[in-house]
């Protein structure tokens, strides 16, 4: 049995950096326990070493040949899209945006509301946010809005001071009409359908102003908020995905802003993948815009609609693919023969080191407890940029 650690787990956006990994013939176990993290390490530590380094049109080839083919694809592309980033490091993202800049590509980091991050709410009015430790140490009430972190981010409640046996005394309120594991832990439970989210947030805002709303549940929640000096709202795609997501997110931030006049209230957005926040930060500092950027005009343009996607003819995916294997992959569209160029990369956090940004923005180092010879996505993308410019 091999024991590695403590290392940073990139199994979800929490990036817990106190994890010890035990790997044996029976599988991978983490301490502290986390099913999501164990699965993540297991997929990456038990990779098939016979997997090829690269393929072109499904045929095994060497990395150099694959890069040459990839460069040809990109040079011939009319509307390339660079996307993915779910497991990307900051270093990967820096290299990917540099390439996108040179070839005039679209870039989407996957951050923001909806399947296409066209309409994040924060640029409209701002937000009040905090790191995990601030919420753990100050919030006496944590409101989780239509998310189930017990399943998706199993250590979130523990890290917010709401774990089993916690002495913080903080209360957990859950707004969800599903019987989730998180809802099962709630001290306060509000159960109404998703279609009522905007109405509920607006009503809470009205209640905050001292006006009447005929809802015992919402009156009870706002009284809870008023009874403590610090509250945190945790939200994610359960609130922001789909039609009207931007309006719902805006309503939450407006509510929090109004509450902040009398008390300290913050929000925490649940991101599910470890690479999304860092990639979005990189895109913002290199271009001035988060979410999605179009370099086609020779400079960054902020993308807020789905229109630019329609003409995409080549996509460059920066890890991971459907099989959750670390890779970069180029696919020509439409449909066609599938992935045309595929290059295996080292898995950041297992076989390669790097930097990732936690869902609250805190940057952490990913270690390489099982280093291997595969190149990082950052190194491949830099070589691809050289090849494209050749």
């Amino acid at each position, binding site marked *: 049995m091999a024991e590695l650690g*403590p290392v*940073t787990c990139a199994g979800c956006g929490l990036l817990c*950096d*106190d994890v010890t990994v035990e790997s044996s013939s029976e599988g991978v176990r983490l301490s502290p326990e986390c099913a999501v993290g164990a699965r993540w390490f297991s997929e990456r530590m038990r990779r098939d070493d016979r997997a090829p380094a690269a393929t072109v049109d499904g045929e095994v080839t060497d990395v150099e040949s694959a890069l040459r083919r990839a460069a040809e694809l990109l040079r011939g592309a009319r509307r390339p899209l660079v996307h993915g980033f779910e497991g990307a490091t*900051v*270093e990967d993202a*820096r290299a990917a945006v*540099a390439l996108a*800049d*040179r070839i005039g590509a679209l870039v989407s980091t996957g951050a923001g509301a909806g399947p296409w991050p066209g309409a*994040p709410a*924060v*640029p*409209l*009015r*701002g*937000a*009040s*946010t*905090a*790191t*995990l*430790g*601030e919420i*753990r*140490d*100050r919030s006496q009430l944590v409101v989780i809005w239509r998310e189930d972190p017990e399943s998706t981010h199993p250590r979130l409640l523990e*890290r917010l001071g709401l774990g089993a046996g916690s002495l913080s005394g903080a209360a957990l309120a859950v707004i969800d009409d599903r019987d989730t594991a998180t809802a099962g832990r709630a001290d306060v439970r509000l159960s109404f359908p998703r279609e009522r989210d905007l109405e509920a947030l607006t009503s809470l805002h009205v209640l905050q102003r001292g006006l009447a709303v005929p809802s015992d549940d919402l009156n009870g929640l706002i009284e809870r908020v008023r009874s403590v*000096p*610090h509250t945190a709202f945790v939200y994610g795609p359960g609130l922001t995905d789909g039609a009207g997501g931007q309006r719902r997110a805006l309503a939450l931030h407006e509510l929090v*802003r109004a509450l*902040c*006049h009398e*008390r*300290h209230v*913050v929000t925490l957005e649940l991101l599910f993948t470890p690479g999304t926040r860092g990639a979005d*930060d*990189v895109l*913002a*500092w*290199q*271009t*001035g*815009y*988060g979410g999605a950027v179009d*370099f086609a*005009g*020779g*400079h*960054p*343009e*902020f993308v807020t609609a789905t229109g630019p996607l329609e003409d995409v003819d080549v996509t460059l995916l920066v890890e991971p693919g459907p099989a959750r294997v670390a890779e970069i992959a180029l696919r020509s569209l439409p449909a066609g023969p599938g992935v045309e160029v595929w290059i295996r990369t080292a898995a950041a956090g297992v076989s390669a*080191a790097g*930097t990732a*940004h936690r869902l609250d*923005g*805190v*940057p*952490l*180092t990913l270690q390489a407890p099982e280093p291997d010879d595969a190149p990082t996505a950052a190194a491949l993308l830099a070589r691809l940029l050289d090849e494209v410019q050749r």
Partner: protein
Amino acid sequence: MTAIRISGGAVHDPANDVDGEIRDVCLEDGKVVADVGPDARRIDARGMVVMAGGVDIHAHIAGPKVNAARKLSPEDRRGDPLDRTEILRSGTGGVVPSTFATGYRYSLLGYTTVVEAAAPPLAARHVLAELRDTPMIDKAFLILMGNNQVLFDLIRQGGERIKDAVAWWLEATGGYGVKLVNPGGVERFKQGNGNVDSLDDEVAGFEVTPRQILEAIGGAVDELGLPHPVHIHANNLGVPGNAEVTLDTMRTLAGRQAHFAHLQFHCYGAPPSQPVGQLRSRAPELLEYLSDHPEITADVGQVMFGPAVTMTADAPVSAVLRDLGADKWINHDTEVETGCGIVPYRYRAGNYVHALQWGIGLELFLLGQNPWQVMLSTDHPNGGSFLSYPKLIRLLMDRAFRDDQIGRANRRAIRRTALLDGLDREYTLNEIAIITRAAPARRLGLSDKGHLGIGADADVTIYHDRADREEMFATPRYVIKDGEVVVEEGELRRVDEGMLLSCRPGFDPEVERVLEPLFGERYTMSFEHYPVRDPALREPARVVEARGS
């Protein structure tokens, strides 16, 4: 490397007592040298003004707060794109430019060194990565320590370990110096206990006061002999009557070296209970104190009429702007260490408070007797973009232009300043060289920068000597970085990556045994993983020695 002879220019090098003398400046291997061979490139600088590269002692250019401001205001940049070229990355400008644009535009302005003045240590990896993507300039960052709960614990325990802890944090982050922002006040805000009013208000739960924080950390920085003294954003920024707290802060640090950031925001008269219309200037008193205390320096934090983005670790200030009706507002609490507030803003000439702030800044420049003590800044982008420096220089050098601008500002506000008292001072080119490069470099402890003496870094800016000083300083004829011409006639010709400047004073390793359990109690990142070790983030760097090392 190229050898260059800059020939026949009027050299303004106040650090070496050179005031407009026509002489050659020779560069080789990235340094100023006494002479170069006949094959050296010759730059004909006749009719031009030669200065060392500009040094910005206080700006906000990289890190999580700057990046949050970018995400907050896409409209700030939409109309100001920068196209990629064969050698340049694309980007966007506006008040808070993208990283590449920041580096390019500072270089086009003749600046070669810039200090990011407020970085949360916890975010050091982010700050370093952004600075790696900010080319053309050498850069350093100051780490925020004025609301650090671990340091509060150490102060309460007697403060014996503060010096080693400060040194440890600089080593762990790659930082250059120490910044105190509203010491104690930000922690109180995050607690929900408002702000501090005086230096003796206690921070609940820690039994420390702003005065104790200033004494302990300011003293530690002084004792360590860091190249740059403690850099202070005093309590009560922007509050009427805050001059009292500013003076109290200066007295508390008496005898120690200290630099006061954006002094303009900290020298207001009138009691806090008075309406804001009673705000008045106490700049003359602050300047008088400075003239008696050469150990204290300041940068002005001039506000410029037009767009700005207020971004600060002083989160309670941003909350006030929010309550005054700000359209957009970001608050971000960083565990253990600091806060953050961001509000896009616009200073208007007709607004009483804005005009008074503008006038107070000019008072600090024009009434101050010692330009080595009062340096140029707009607290970019809080008082306005760094791109407004040329206009600010013109305001200082050209009285007719200044009078015209004064005439456009709120009359009632201007009457409360000394600007209508026949203030006819016009800065000389040498004084401009002092406040924009010589004094900041000296105060930062960068002995190779801010001057053109033998052995100095070959960072040089050459200007056409134009009557319109704004135009002159906005478009240098040449900018030379590390001995290579990077800008000619307003165009970037060569990309220089720029160097990270850091300071790594030694510390007693026993301090880690003290810090580790405190980290365990307070941080959500492990002590083991906190220090930045990745060479790709930390190198290459020039390590500037501490005097106490």
